[in-house]
């Protein structure tokens, strides 16, 4: 589903605008990241896109068509997970999915197989009859996303879906979103955890104080703002002097040094892609440096965001 926003705006009192002049195109089948500080207008924008909130000005078209007075038909094509949506504690995943499936007016012959599909996809089969209040946070989040995909929407809108999840759960979320995109679903996701959006989003849009600061293809934006940097943290058991020589030869900037859990740590900034980092690692090992771990510290998106918002924090 392709979505176009034209001069979209929302005010709650006629004076202050939560969002204003937002013009954006979300290509069909893409994953778009919506980034911004608290109060930037992300949730308001997502709620308008999900049709639960009417805009004060501007327009939204879905595949070239504006939503009519009766939005129920359009909502069957949208799956929306708002910020902080809790579950019904006493309902099991099966009952919860069935409830929402019926709210989306799915007939039993479609609904029951869809429930089984979602329970399998989101690895909830073993907990199908467990009250939701007894599920872990990761399972609850998976159930919420399953609810959004149950009726086969063409547009998935997720507001801070990774909030409060542990790293394993966030990794699972990334896998799910990738699978969702593979099904041809357009995904619009907002998150503060930019690392999760990195390598996942095709497009991104940054909001500040209700206005769009930048939007477009992730690679183009990184290119535009010259944030072709990767930051890594190396943990070494030995050979730190040799490591510094290799890094200097490879023109990797050492941002910081430290000592952690019996290992020397080096934070380095690499001007290039992951291939360059792989070559550096091979050189380090070849020079006798005892490398314990190499992990990426900051995402490229985070660099862009920090660059754009350094003087404009809301």
């Amino acid at each position, binding site marked *: 589903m392709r979505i176009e926003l034209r001069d979209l705006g929302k005010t709650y*009192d006629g*004076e202050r605008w939560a969002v204003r002049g937002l013009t954006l195109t979300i290509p069909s089948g893409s994953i778009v990241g919506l980034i911004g500080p608290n109060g930037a207008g992300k949730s308001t924008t997502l709620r308008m896109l999900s049709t639960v909130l009417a805009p004060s000005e501007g327009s939204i078209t879905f595949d070239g068509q504006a939503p009519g007075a009766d939005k129920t038909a359009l*909502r069957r094509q*949208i799956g929306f997970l708002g910020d902080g*949506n809790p579950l019904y504690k006493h309902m099991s995943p099966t*009952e919860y999915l069935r*409830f929402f499936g019926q709210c989306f007016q799915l007939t039993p012959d479609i609904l029951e197989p869809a429930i089984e599909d979602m329970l399998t996809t989101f690895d909830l089969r073993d907990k199908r009859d467990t009250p939701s209040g007894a599920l872990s946070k990761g399972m609850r989040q998976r159930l919420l996303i399953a609810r959004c995909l149950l*009726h086969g929407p063409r547009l998935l809108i997720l507001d801070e879906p990774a909030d409060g999840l542990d790293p394993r759960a966030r990794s699972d979320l990334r896998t799910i979103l990738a699978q969702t995109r593979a099904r041809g679903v357009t995904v619009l996701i907002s998150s503060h955890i930019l690392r999760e959006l990195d390598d996942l989003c095709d497009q991104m849009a940054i909001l500040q104080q209700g206005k769009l600061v930048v939007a477009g293809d992730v690679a183009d934006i990184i290119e535009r703002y010259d944030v072709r940097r990767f930051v890594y943290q190396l943990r070494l058991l030995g050979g730190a002097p040799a490591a510094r020589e290799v890094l200097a030869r490879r023109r990797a900037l050492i941002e910081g040094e430290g000592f952690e859990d019996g290992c020397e740590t080096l934070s380095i900034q690499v001007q290039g892609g992951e291939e360059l980092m792989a070559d550096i690692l091979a050189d380090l090992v070849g020079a006798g440096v005892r490398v314990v771990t190499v992990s990426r510290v900051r995402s490229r998106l985070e660099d862009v965001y920090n660059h754009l918002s350094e003087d404009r924090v809301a």
Partner: protein
Amino acid sequence: MPLSRQLHAASLPFVTRALRGGRKLRYIGAAVLLAMLSVVIGLWLALGSGTLEHELRVGFKLERPMYLQAQQDFKIFAETPEELRSLQAAVHKHTSSAGLRDIADAVVVNNYGAEMQVVDRVSEALDLVTRVRHPNVFKIDADLRDPAEALLARHDLKNLGMTRGWDRWSEDEMNAQLRVVLARDLIPEVTTYASPLTVADAIRVTGLVAGTFAMLLLMLFAPVLAGTQLAQEVHENTLQPLTGTALSARQLVLGMTLGPAAVIALLAAPQLLLFLAAAASVGHILPALGFVAVCLASGAFLTMFAQLAGLALGRQRSSGMLGVTLLALLAPLTMLGAVLALELPARGVGVLGLLPQGAASHMLLESFLPAGTAMRCPNLDATELASAQWAVTIGALGMLCFAWLGLRALERRVGELSPTALSRGEALLGALVSIVLVTLANPYYENTYSAAADFYLLNFAFVLVPMAILLMMRVPMAETPTALRRVPVGPLMVEFAAGLALFFAVCVACMGVDNLDIMNSPVALAYLAWTITVAGLLTLRVAALPMSWLAKLWVGVCALALGVSFVHTVQWTRSEYLKPADILGFWQVSPLLGVLQAVMLVLIPAALLRALRHPASTTPTES
């Protein structure tokens, strides 16, 4: 989409949720148990021979007290088989001719227990029979004179002429009792107590019990359940995802109503079946059907009202607290309605239209104990009974109208379709219905002392409540910081005043403009205007702006001042003898209080207006 499919789409998810898992079977089990309980209670109440059942039957006027039965039916009740034997022996001894002569001559002494009971009863009967000799004291029925004389002659008591005891009953009652005494030949019946009600009466009582349960389920528990569930959805933020589904706002509201309604329907269905079966067999089926209709209409209104309360208060209060509050509000109204229906004063039949619990109770009783008979409210004539029926019918229609308005308000709030819960036209309709129901409850009676003021001033106080609620529904609500809220005070106050002007126009139509005696007192008019202004501003303040504890205290003070102002309005309307010095009523108590009253007359409306124009001043400061 056809209406039936819309309703099905709305109800399916919520009814399925309410009856999921083992819940359906449990509710069915509970319904069967409740129905059995109704039958057991009904049979026990009607046919039980214990003291408690007897007292309850006497309380519900289904039976005369035991002492009255004993006197009027010339019986003696034994509690045990041994006592029964003793009483029978004593009767045999004291009802022979010699025994009767001893009683007549008061020579029976040192009697106790069974002996005493028999002697007392026979002595009373003998006293009654001898009154035939005193026609100036007791006008005996012609057909009883000869049998009485014959009885006295048979036992050689014909020279007995003294009366004993004292007149306790009417002549009709005395003749009735004499008839029984003569039929039993001065020999009292000794028996153990048993309920005088028949099987048909037992079915009636069972029907009443089942109907009472059904009424409680539909008009008390259904609103509480629906209100608390919606409050819980709001409190736990589970309502928001529902607004993004394929259900329209109206379907969502209907679904959230029908879910709890399904539970209540399961519990109430057997009760209603029992009730209707009893009414069809030994009662009156038309009032029974009317009872069901009133319960459904009133239940719909009360459910919508409770859900609106849940939606409004769910964010600040837990659902449990809201449930307790609703129960505390509705339970006393239910009891009040039951008392009203049982007693039904002639001038109070119209209240049945305003109090749905009263209307339902009245129709329940009409199904088995029609008013205007010896069993219930014998003082009501045919006109008053017809007025009661009209009041119930108009009241039910009014409740349906309010239920529809409640539905409109809910779907606008839930779906955020409009800043205000009701449109101007809908609020006007609500105002009209309120005015009709209040006027019906307290109509104008000519030729009574202070008829006019009793009519329109009292009704003004009543109609102020629904008008205030309707005004709240007209206040624009949005998710805006308090400091930035804008309340259209002027237009809303004009609407409020217009609604009350309509009320006064109806009053004038009922009683004539000449009887609008408030127009003769400028002071009363001024106080009335102040009352209306402050009532409107206070309503807007409560609806639109946050309430800190200090604000709640201030609102309480304003409400008190409203009461004082209304009392002054009534005083200045009804009295011709008040002087200018009495304008400030508290001046008579103390000049200082009088000054304070004057200050409050200015301060209160000014403060309320200021709060509404500058909402930022009402925002609680964050610590």
